[in-house]
């Protein structure tokens, strides 16, 4: 497959909603991947330099996005090598999101935040939403209400101007603050906490623009 050409970052108003800034769709997708798999050296290197850096800088100009972006950037700016930082973050990713961390786990599943269990009504609802668009989680073993799957669908719906976008956005805005708060409490690095903070702020902005 041919690699897509990189684009320069647009300078649209930082107050604009996601739909008004297509690169934000890619930002959603980036966040979806950030919470889907443990970071590698390559993903950290990519996040530390290039257009992504510029996007983060631009986002940091917006007061409500600054805390999350700042937290994320602080981690990326640390003097650790890409390899060392990705190893550290991969370790924390496992602790936070794989379940191995016991009481320190932050579940990335909507069902858990709403009911305390996996695979509850939100999972069934997400399966229906995905099916309605002839989609499914690419990882067949993954629950459809994983944050990353929800974000990937949100990005897709946004990119395709689908009217279901607003509803999905509303429901995500309901449970993600809880996820953000727990991540802020449990993440010792600030990387995932910053990403969660940024995500919630971003979705909040979008929700206000669609209310």
């Amino acid at each position, binding site marked *: 497959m041919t690699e897509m050409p990189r684009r320069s970052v*647009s300078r649209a108003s930082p107050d604009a909603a996601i739909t008004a800034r297509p690169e934000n769709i890619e930002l959603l*997708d980036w966040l979806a991947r950030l919470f889907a798999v443990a970071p590698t050296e390559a993903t950290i290197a*990519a996040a530390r330099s290039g257009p992504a850096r510029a996007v983060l800088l631009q986002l940091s100009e917006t007061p409500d996005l600054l805390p999350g972006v700042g937290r994320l950037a*602080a981690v990326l700016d640390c003097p650790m090598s890409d390899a060392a*930082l990705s190893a550290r973050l991969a370790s924390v990713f496992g602790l936070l999101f794989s379940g*191995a961390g*016991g009481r320190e786990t932050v579940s990335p599943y909507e069902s858990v935040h709403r009911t305390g269990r996996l695979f509850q009504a939100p999972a069934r609802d997400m399966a229906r939403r995905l099916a309605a668009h002839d*989609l*499914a989680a690419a990882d067949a073993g993954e629950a459809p209400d994983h944050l990353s799957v929800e974000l990937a669908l949100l990005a897709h719906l946004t990119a395709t101007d689908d009217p279901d976008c607003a509803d999905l956005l509303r429901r995500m805005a309901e449970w993600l603050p809880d996820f953000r708060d727990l991540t802020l409490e449990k993440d010792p690095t600030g990387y995932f906490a910053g990403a969660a903070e940024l995500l919630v702020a971003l979705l909040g902005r979008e929700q206000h623009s669609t209310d």
Partner: protein
Amino acid sequence: MSMERTQELRAELSRRSLLHYGLAAGIFGFAGPSLLSIGARAASPDGEVLTGSHWGAFRAKVEAGQIVSVKPWEKDPAPSHQLAGVLDSIYSPTRIKYPMVRRAYLEKGPGADVDSRGAGDFVRVSWDQALDLVTKELLRVEKTYGPTATFAGSYGWKSPGRLHNCQSLLRRMMNLKGSFVNASGDYSTGAAQIIMPHVVGTLEMYEQQTVWPVVVDKTELMVFWGADPIVTNQISWVIGDHGGYEGMKALKAKGTKVICIDPVKTETAEFFGAEWIAPRPQTDVALMLGIAHTLVAEKLADQKFLKTYTTGFDKFLPYLMGDTDKTPKSAEWAADICEIPADKIKELAHLFAKHRTMLAGGFSLQRQQYGEQRHWMLVTLAAMLGQIGLPGGGFGFSYHYANGGTPSADAPVLTGITDGGKAKEGAAWMTENGAASIPCARVVDMLMNPGKEFDFNGKKEKYPDVKMAYWVGGNPFVHHQDRNRMVAAWKKLETFIVQDFQWTPTARHADIVLPATTSYERNDIESVGDYAGSAILAMKKVIDPVFESKTDYDIFAAIAERLGKGKDFTEGKSEMDWIKSFYDAALTQAKAKKIPMPEFDAFWSGAGVIEFPVTEGKSFVRYAKYREDPLLNPLGTPSGRIEIYSKNIEKMGYDDCGPHPKWMEPVERLGGPTTKYKLHITTSHPKSRLHSQLCGTKLRDTYAVAGHEPCLINTKDAEARGIKSGDVVRVFNDRGQILAGAKVTDGIRPGVIRVNEGGWYDPIEPGKPGSLCRYGDANVLTVDMGTSKLAQGNCGHTAVGDVEKYTGPDVTVGVFATPKNAS
């Protein structure tokens, strides 16, 4: 951005649709496969599936491929409230999603950075990677160190099911690989199951009791001694039948007098409105001796029974009366030790002798140092009362376990997959195989003392030098004693593999973690009721495996395949082939006995359950045949009679288990002559868990205090320490420290606190011995020593310590150290 440019970019995104990123990198420079795929997944049909668990049979309602609710099987007479936890365990956030390997182990190999075990730093790997790693390590350890370097004596309450018996499957694979170190016995009855064959000729602990209908009809006085059947009969080794509750309800309705002897006013005591007698823990033998002495002193002992049905009472009597040690074991002597007034002890002797008395002893009595003595002395006491073999009289050790005493149905025996070892009579899970074997509770001793000689039931053995352990269907980082000793010992392992469905404390201490399904994500078959055997149940798969979990059978078959033994492992059979073969074997027996049973297909696709009638089982009286004719129906002891004095044990010459039951001071006890701490820590079975199972579920919210395992404490003891209900407390002794949540009550005797066993070990500094356990694992505090040289059982109820209001820092926040360079 211009409208035109926006639409152009949007169109591009739409084309890619975020589904076709493939290896493309967007503005974030991120490349990777899409998180979504095109094509909706087919939904499983909705419906209701009957299946079963340790907590009973139940119907699971399925919607869109997920279990949305469970309800007890309509034939269950007393469903357990723990069933809600079953649903929660399937969908617990602590499910193991993928095969995972400890980072240091993956990067540096076996034995790398063992101090990081328990810290939770795992890397996701593919199944192929994981299985290759496991196979390679099995072969490396075997080649490098020989067959006694791999421990597969994995112990624990595995899930029910005759095929996916993970422990049998593990040993089946190990036997095909070569050999391994096995373990014998169990943690439940380690001491009693070794002493009882010397005394009555059988394991006794897992035998049918005089059945409840007979007890209800004939028993005049029911004594639960260290037993709490209202709590513990919720669970069964197979599918719970809960028949014991019908018996207990009937006994209560009849108004039969019940006495509960226990440091805690148990649920059973509350249920019956029983008389509560609360001796000091671990002093039961003294109390029994005081009663026995009174029986002799007041000529209430049944000499005819002793002469006809027992041997060695004449050798025990001089000890009882003080002729051998100038210490008569009188009621007054006993009162000083157990803190039950002498008059009450004498009253018990009178009551026992005057009425048809059933002495129902619990397993807890023997999970203490010198635990063998409790059951031996209880049998001796029952023999002195002369009611063994009479309807409603004598003793019973399983009224509290798996609904012992529920009448047995006329049912065929359901077989299961074998592990390749030689079956051992008395308990379905015990087989004899392996290059070496240790008593299961001595696993830490084994790791700490390779090559050291140890005694066990008349034999001398040496501990093997184990380098690798593979654990399935168990949670030793909760059920084993003296956690800190264990944490240190575990560092000696080069490789620790755990196969489970949930991130238990044990899984968190592993090097390689393999995700297994729960029982509800696979097909299997099982009996209902350990003693009742009232039905055979099709344990149909309710939902597809969650995440990447695989069945135990598939995992071990895959490892066997990599070992070149795949065909030997599977015998060419599929899951359903095996299940049908077990059913057909039962069907053959049923036809011979003229018990009606449908063919397999009708059973499996029909109701999924076949129930059996109860006929002769309704009137079973334990030891009735022996009593009727001891010559024609002798016991399995050397003398054929109940042995109050064992010449076999005498020959062993042990200093901690003599030839007749006797009182010995344990290493520590409440009021003991050399005991440092002032409180006994009792660690009985919890009401809302099966040992540690379901601790990781929402059920915990129904009993946790301030987020911690509850600690029952008497009002006076609490006042003396300024502790109130709801306070977080630190329970400690020289072995360790835990946090717990105080529950102040008069339902526990002064001088005793209770922290139930089974609370998940949650160290504030994983891998560091001495670390504070945040949640409340009682086994941080218990002693890890053999009950005696005879049985080497565990001493999970031997612990003293103290408690104080916790004033340290909040332990739930900031437990992870922030790395200097990443904050």
